[in-house]
């Protein structure tokens, strides 16, 4: 498997764009329920603090601050674009699907219909040492979602 299959263009783009980053300068919608979660990967020091706002049963906003490798930053960026507009149940389903693909060691293919840009992380599943990098913001989102919903 080549390096380019791991670092797909979409991942490198998102690692630069970092959609949703800037937690401290982004206000949550006034009447939304929010949850916030801090996750740390002690192996490499990847760190994400993510806040998720839920309004009328749907994700209204994802905002985060973080530092880490391109995989972890891109994955937080993709999540921030993907989650808003989904119902709580839908986001849970997306997170579960993402987790299943990443933990499959390459055996489970990503469903682009469900995962959108996040399907690009399929290649990460082949690199056991990088799975946590891709998962860190999703674990934070799951935790925040449970608090907010």
């Amino acid at each position: 498997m080549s390096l380019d299959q791991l670092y797909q263009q979409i991942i490198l783009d998102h690692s630069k764009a970092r959609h949703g980053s800037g937690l401290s300068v982004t206000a949550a919608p006034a009447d939304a329920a929010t949850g916030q979660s801090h996750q740390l990967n002690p192996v490499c020091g990847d760190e994400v603090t993510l806040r998720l706002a839920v309004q009328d049963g749907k994700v209204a906003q994802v905002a985060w601050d973080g530092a880490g490798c391109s995989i972890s930053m891109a994955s937080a960026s993709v999540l921030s674009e993907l989650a808003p507009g989904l119902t709580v149940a839908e986001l849970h389903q997306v997170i579960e699907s993402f987790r299943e693909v990443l933990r499959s060691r390459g055996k489970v293919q990503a469903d682009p219909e469900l995962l959108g840009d996040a399907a690009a992380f399929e290649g990460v599943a082949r690199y056991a040492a990088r799975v946590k990098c891709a998962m860190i913001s999703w674990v934070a989102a799951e935790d925040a979602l449970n608090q907010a919903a």
Partner: protein
Amino acid sequence: MAVVSTPATLERALPVMDNAEVLRIRNDFPVLNQLVNGQPLVYLDSGATSQNPVSVIEAEQEFYEQRNAAVHRGAHHLAVEATEAFEDARQTMADFIGAGYEETIWTSNATEGLNLISYALSNAGLWAAQGRGDQGLRELALGPGDQIVVTEMEHHANLIPWQELAFRTGATLRHIPIDDDGNLRMDAAAEVIGSRTKVLAFTHASNVLGIINPVQELTALGRAAGALVVLDACQSAPHLPLNVKDLDVDFAVLSGHKMLAPTGIGVLYGRQELLDILPPFLTGGSMITTVTMERAEYLPAPQRFEAGTQRISQAVALAAAANYLTETGLDRIHTWESGLGQRMVVGLDAIPGVRVLGPAAGKERIGLAAFDVDGVHAHDVGQFLDSRGIAVRVGHHCAQPLHRRLGLTATTRASAYLYNTTDDVDRFLEAVAGVRAYFRA
């Protein structure tokens, strides 16, 4: 007429190492002879764990095939053979570090060695409080008002055991700061180390900076303060000649897997007078003289600190590793690796956006270099290098406070050993030069 040659004179007679010799050495290491991602493996992660030569692998296999038995018990043939092999290995390691036979204690690794010292010291306090032991033991006990001194560059293994010892005893943990180049601030050391310092623990060579610390100066400060001096020799013992008596330290630790041996075996050196009075850390079988239902009497060192069935085949293999290093010549290995370290720093300095930690080019360093690549996380650097068959370490290298001090969370580290050629370093440098373009930094 007999010609007398000691190993020392033989060693001096050998020429400096060169790539041709290193390529011959490399043939002794089967694992290095493989392709990774379609390219010949360049292994530059020996600072984390080193590879094993055939002689070490065979020593362990030979032990299991011909001599395996429990040691220090049983009168049968294999038990005698195993005990001899185990104790011969101890003598080999004692000679390797310049220690006495009874001063050489087997551990799992350096981390266990450091924990052993710290727990033996807090046990000294518990014993003294119950009126057990003599005046010498009472003097080793720590309490409120006493200080433990470490440095800002320590590996977590030489930091956390001291944090916990301070917690258990009420002593205070202090540290010697570093300057921006990573050198210990010796002016500050002279202030931090004082009459209340009971333990001074520091690393001989930094696993991140590549710096070799001024052991003699630090030890002199420790001695003047009446402190116990503990040396972490993990990154020095595998790479340069080490003599714990010349360095005048009270304790020293090393890990076998960083010096061509298997995992699970290490050595703790302790000065005889201290080992004679220190309480044990782990207790149980093999370390006692008389046991009743109420209490036990303990053997002197080294058995006093070796409870339970020991790592016998690993000890035998570690001795084989020490012999391999001694035969090659540690001063020659040190010179070769220092050259590789310099080659790394000079090469990395020439790559835009790369910042090397520790001593500048031309300053003394062991054969490793940790560095930051502007705009690219260490994990990505390591992945990129791996795709080119190059193995390096990424992360904080178990030295979070040091990284924080330098304003970083993670770096990439290349660390060489006697089996690395200049070509290995050049392939590594060529790959690093391509990192920022790939990640568009």
